[in-house]
């Protein structure tokens, strides 16, 4: 996940985890890891006492060495920017062009 980006949105409480997209809680059928992550997030809910505070969950991500967590094909915006590189600055500035 991208906790720095989430924090910048002004979310009141944040439990950060170093897992890739698609595997927020852990691998399929790894109920122990999934439960531990869920408990960690709920503990953060209780423990965080100041708006905007972040708790970094202490989980490793060694399992990611064994899996392909990338999407099966590039998402539409990646394909679009390859064909329209002059729009890259708009993407980086999060200022999409007007709808046509």
């Amino acid at each position: 996940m991208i906790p720095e980006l989430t924090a910048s949105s002004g979310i009141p409480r944040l439990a950060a985890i170093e897992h890739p997209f698609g595997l927020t809680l852990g691998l399929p059928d790894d109920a122990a890891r999934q439960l531990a992550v869920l408990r960690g997030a709920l503990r953060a809910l209780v423990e965080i006492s100041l708006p905007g505070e972040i708790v970094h969950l202490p989980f490793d991500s060694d399992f990611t060495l064994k899996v392909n967590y990338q999407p099966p094909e590039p998402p539409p915006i990646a394909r679009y920017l390859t064909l329209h590189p002059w729009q890259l600055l708009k993407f980086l500035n999060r200022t999409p062009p007007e709808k046509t």
Partner: protein
Amino acid sequence: MEHVAKVVDSYRFLDGISKRAMRRWAALGTPDQIPWTPLAKPLSQCTVAIVSSAGIALRTQPPFDREIEDRDPWFSDPSFRILPRTAKAEDVRVCHLHINPSFAAQDLNCVMPIERLNELEALGEIARSAPSHYSYMGYTLRPEALLHDSVPAIIRRLREEQVDTVLLVPA
């Protein structure tokens, strides 16, 4: 040996332009006011709901419209889906175009830990897993429809079901 606390690397799993963009977006600034509602009661007395950005729809519901994002790659389907607390991987489709959907297709708890939350209910660690949980498409650079239509509708339903706390789970 002194214990060193884990500090999560926000950008570890990103590469190239994605890493550059996310760093830039994170640096665009934080709102002056961060909303804050104190937890009014112990977790063991709370009803908890999950909101997932994985774009998950029941097979009995219309899927999220991927063609919207194909037509306008700055935007995605701004609607949301309601999933019951009994939902499992075989009941759903994962529509998000920016993740590998195969993990959640095998085990929904990878991105939407509904079964794990039900287990915490059985153990008495929370009072109740809400009757309904929610999902939307987590990528958009045009969030107006999502914020003006879907989010208020989700909040209304959360209130109707007397949900005390919501776990927002990014995908």
